[in-house]
């Protein structure tokens, strides 16, 4: 993957930015999110978590199973505020 490739479309984060975060010591997807905002957008990291896991495995040599994607937090899918507000 080239450094210019956009890994996270929602937040426009490139592979290069994710690599820089990994080189600064970041070792999990949750930690990459905090540093770069990749995966923090509307889609909730649905596509980019896989790409981040791949970059993490490549850069660190960790097995793919060790770079687990973070646990989903409610709401699992984006919900309009007004719809949530009316739930009972």
């Amino acid at each position, binding site marked *: 993957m080239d450094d210019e490739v956009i890994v996270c479309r929602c937040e426009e984060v490139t592979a290069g930015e994710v690599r820089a975060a990994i080189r600064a*010591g970041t*070792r999990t997807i949750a930690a990459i999110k*905090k540093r770069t905002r990749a995966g*923090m*957008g509307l889609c909730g990291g649905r596509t980019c978590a896989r790409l981040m896991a791949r970059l993490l495995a490549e850069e660190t040599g960790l097995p793919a199973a060790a770079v687990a994607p973070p646990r989903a937090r409610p709401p699992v899918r*984006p919900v309009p*505020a007004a719809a*949530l507000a009316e739930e009972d």
Partner: protein
Amino acid sequence: MPDVVIIGAGIVGCALAARLAEGGINVTLIDQAEVVAGASGANLSLVLWGDAEPGVSLTLTRRAWDELPAEIADLEARTGLGVEFRPIHTLALVPDGLDPRAVLAGGAHLTEAGFETELIDAAAVRALEPAVDLGGVRAAVYQEQAAINPFLFTLAWADRARAAGASIVTDTRVTGFRMDGERIVGLETAGGPVVGDLYVLATGAWTRALAMTAGVDLPEDHIIGQACVTEALPPLLHGLVGEAGDKRVSFELEVAARGGDASGLRLVEFAAIQAMSGNLVVGQVSHGGPSVGEGVRPGSLRDLAAGLVRRLPVARSASIIRSWAKPVPFTPDHQPLIGPVPSRPNLFVASGLKSALIITPLLSKLIAGAIADGDLGPLRAFSPGRFEERRLDGR
């Protein structure tokens, strides 16, 4: 110089690790998860002086605020990370049933310290924040405070600590202490024992539980703060908009009085701020402990969304994309716990902070100084020794 082992890589642990390592001390920083996994990444991003209690807290907060721009510039220059520090106004809408003058008078100590706190009318609120629906609110408390990106702020301190030689160990939970009489001689972790001369608890709301394993019961409880965030939106809010309230202190007292299980108690305090990325961060529904680690309750998410829709109707169709619940500690006198535990001479606590973001750059400097030369200085006011000690062995 002692070898220092710090437990907890939140804002407090990371900043302290950086200060100590820069002073030439050998530092190991351990976290059960990763850097900024606790409350330090779960807050409303406010650099708040409005919470400072009269006395030493206020004096130190004043100094921390005055030094902050230079501290931030230094941090950014050393690490190359921009932490999105920016001045913002905070508006606390005064709801019906609260007397605006009384709310203002409650902040007299702030004014005395040179922190300007003013009452503004509805027209002025509308001029500052046109998107806000005031309902029947006629006045708000206006303060010029600041905001910061709490992830990047904490990560920058961690980078700085690492650059100065500190070693940061993540995914390693401390499960107990090896004792030799009153002295701690090592930490038990899943990855094996960790040894140092001085052990610092920078474990936020987890501090009490961990200290118990060293045989001391520290007077600290916690509430669980819950918040959520919307998708990125165009500029909508300029500062923080919240509701003035006086219920937090009594809520905390009730939680403490329940002792073991206060999870049925809850408090809703609306507040919203727009991050630089455009997302609206919406707080805060709190409930009593001890349930550390569970997610946001469905009813809490509903109340957060309802607050947003009521105060910012233009955001009613905005998607809520994430939510979180993290514990925040408090002590019986609302002052932090900082200093050695009297009966455990090489166990040092640095916890119990409410508005940690504003004060940590200064506090970390003072604590590092206290560790290096054994003198707490002004921090003596926060020493755990101010409370009668409760040891688990009953002595």
